[in-house]
């Protein structure tokens, strides 16, 4: 009983029902359809996971041939192996929880049915992406989730900032997708197929340069989708969308698609060491860069957005140093604690009547205890507190990084310290001290706190419960033992605890200190607070030249000058010629008759002297 197609089909049916009939349906029905379809899908994944024989061979299902051109075939093929199962469980599991949460969070919003239709459509595409048995089908899901991301970021479409954020996400992702397309073309040229099985079977025999080019182009695609330097800029803006969207799409699932894709293509990457090193360096750079920006943000969702970028950097570091299973492990634990952080942030925002600035929060421990305790679990996990889920996965990555190059480990540890600092800074600012906002804060309903509690349990114990590297050891060999592993572990734990400690001191004990520190840092603080002016630099170097170039060259020059010029010129010339010819039309019958006679005479002369019609 496999019927893999049911897994994505269920959310798709939910999308069709809510998308087409949603306007007329009551909220109860919409909830039942939207949440029900995803939960059923989750149960089906569980059933499949339990019933499959998990040997070395993945399970394949061919539904129909999509493209056939000469010897090149692309089918609608699904494939399920251990990596897919991990991803499926994350996507449908977290997806179910977030759908349930959203029924509470979105209860008073306009366009309720639209929101859930898009969410279900997202689930469909994400599951297609994960189940795909070839690169093209993966790309279908890849583009589909991008579309849903765009639609949901711009969900509040009457807000200008939301629609521009949606556009930004879509356009920046085009750059990455261009790279991914090129990678696919290269694969078709060199392998003659896009099927995972055949590509990976043939990959070890190909020249290193080819594989490096393919892997680097894939990295461009992954950098776009998974918000790595230099294409990360869309993700922080994507927080304009509703908070459940941020949690599901822009933290737990979609943005990890790049990590999944790289792990799926592990065979290609492992045979292209230069590409691997690039992946690791980009991942590490993104992790540090985003973490420093996160230190100075005040919008609670922006803090977590930069944290997501930073954690995605960790995953890429893991992939880059060859610890694919550690990357996937971190992907999973990150899905737990980051979804929880965002949902908790949503609950906090809900409690504060839509306020997102942490300077106007504070003291919520009295009003929203469940949110506080669950968020504390997530914050412990992301800080790598011993025993929590984040501790295991982060440690696995850092250990592998140490084995690859020790300096990467040290940079990673510093980043871990910063991560702990800014997450706990957000925690203290939100829950400690006195309430500084407006109105009366209140705890969220059970539909919201329920998922929070489930996720809190997963954040705390997910690392112990699900040992992903062991589960995936058939696909990705377990990393070798690194000497002094216990010491490395101790160092990363210490970094996390120091980060927590400093934030506690600065934001609870001595609340005067942050102000002094910022004024002492001066320009450096301004630089970080304004996100290193990256958006402004991109505006000046890419966006403005493009817009101005389009305006002057393409619009005024090519369109108005050349094309309109030709069209208008034809019209003007016709009028000028007509102006001469209309002089003949005198309205006088006798002049017309004269023309007729002259014409006849002319014809006659031609016939007589020109040889006639013989």
């Amino acid at each position, binding site marked *: 009983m496999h019927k893999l197609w049911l897994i994505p089909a269920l959310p798709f049916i939910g999308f069709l029902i809510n998308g087409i009939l949603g306007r007329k349906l009551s909220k109860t029905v919409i909830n039942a359809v939207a949440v029900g379809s995803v939960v059923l899908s989750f149960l089906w994944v569980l059933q499949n996971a339990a019933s499959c024989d998990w040997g070395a061979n993945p399970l394949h299902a061919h539904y129909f041939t999509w493209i056939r051109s000469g010897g090149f075939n692309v089918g609608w093929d699904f494939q399920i192996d251990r990596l897919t199962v991990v991803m499926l469980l994350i996507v449908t599991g977290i997806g179910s929880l977030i759908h349930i949460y959203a029924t509470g969070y979105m209860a008073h919003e306009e366009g309720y049915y639209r929101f859930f239709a898009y969410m279900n459509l997202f689930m469909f595409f994400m599951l297609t992406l994960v189940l795909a048995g070839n690169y093209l089908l993966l790309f279908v899901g890849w583009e589909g989730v991008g579309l849903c991301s765009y639609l949901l970021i711009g969900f509040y479409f009457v807000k200008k900032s939301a629609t521009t954020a949606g556009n930004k996400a879509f356009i920046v992702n085009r750059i990455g997708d261009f790279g991914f397309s090129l990678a696919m073309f290269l694969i078709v040229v060199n392998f003659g197929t896009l099927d995972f099985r055949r590509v990976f079977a043939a990959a070890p025999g190909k020249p290193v340069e080819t594989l490096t080019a393919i892997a680097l182009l894939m990295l461009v695609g992954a950098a776009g989708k998974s918000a790595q330097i230099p294409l990360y800029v869309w993700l922080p803006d994507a927080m304009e969308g509703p908070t459940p969207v941020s949690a599901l799409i822009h933290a737990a699932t979609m943005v990890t698609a790049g990590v999944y894709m790289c792990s799926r293509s592990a065979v290609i990457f492992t045979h292209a060491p230069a590409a691997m090193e690039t992946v690791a360096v980009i991942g590490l750079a993104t992790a540090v860069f985003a973490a420093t920006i996160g230190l100075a943000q005040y919008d609670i969702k922006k803090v977590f957005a930069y944290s997501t970028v930073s954690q995605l950097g960790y995953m890429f570091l893991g992939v880059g140093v060859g610890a694919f299973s550690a990357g996937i492990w971190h992907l999973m634990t990150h899905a737990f604690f980051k979804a929880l952080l965002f949902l908790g942030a949503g609950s906090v925002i809900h409690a504060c009547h839509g306020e997102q600035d942490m300077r106007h929060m504070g003291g919520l421990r009295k009003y929203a205890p469940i949110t506080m305790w669950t968020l504390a679990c997530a914050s412990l996990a992301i800080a790598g507190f011993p025993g929590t889920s984040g501790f295991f996965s982060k440690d696995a990555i850092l250990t592998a990084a140490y084995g690859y190059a020790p300096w990467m480990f040290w940079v990673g540890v510093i980043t871990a310290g910063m991560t702990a600092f800014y997450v706990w800074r957000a925690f203290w600012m939100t829950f400690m001290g006195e309430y500084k906002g407006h109105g009366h804060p209140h705890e969220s309903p059970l539909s919201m706190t329920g998922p929070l509690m489930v996720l809190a349990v997963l954040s705390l114990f997910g690392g112990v419960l699900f040992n992903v590297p062991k589960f995936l050891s058939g696909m990705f060999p377990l990393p070798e033992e690194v000497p002094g592993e216990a010491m490395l572990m101790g160092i990363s734990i210490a970094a996390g605890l120091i980060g927590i400690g400093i934030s506690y001191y600065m934001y609870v004990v001595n609340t005067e200190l942050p102000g002094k520190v910022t004024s002492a840092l001066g320009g450096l603080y301004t630089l970080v607070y304004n996100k290193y002016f990256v958006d402004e630099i991109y505006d000046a170097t890419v966006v403005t030249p493009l817009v101005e170039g389009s305006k002057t060259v393409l619009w005024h020059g090519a369109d108005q000058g050349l094309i309109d010029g030709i069209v208008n010129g034809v019209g003007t010339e016709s009028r000028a010629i007509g102006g001469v010819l209309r002089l003949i039309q*005198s309205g006088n019958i006798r002049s017309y008759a004269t023309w007729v006679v002259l014409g006849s005479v002319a014809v006659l002369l031609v016939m007589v002297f020109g040889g006639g019609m013989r």
Partner: protein
Amino acid sequence: MDPASALQALNSGIPIAWYLTLAAVLFTIGVAGFLLRRNIITVFMCIELMLNAVNLTFVAFAHQHRDVSGHLYAFFVMVVAAAEAAVGLAIILTVFKNRSTLNIDEIDTLKN
């Protein structure tokens, strides 16, 4: 002299060129009148003259070639001319009623 030989004498007596010359003269008079005269009735009569000049050539050639199609065309032209005369005269009548003039140069509403 029996009628058949009389006809033959007639046929051989007048060469085709004479008929054609007469037709050309008549046609030219028609053209000249059409272009030069101002009265619509006269212009109209000149058109008739041109049509009949053409008829004459048709009949002359038909006779020479012993072919009846020329006669057929002559009859067609007469029918058309009759119809044209009826319509044309009606138009002239209406124009005169409306404008109290038959000067062709004053009837130039097609201009502008």
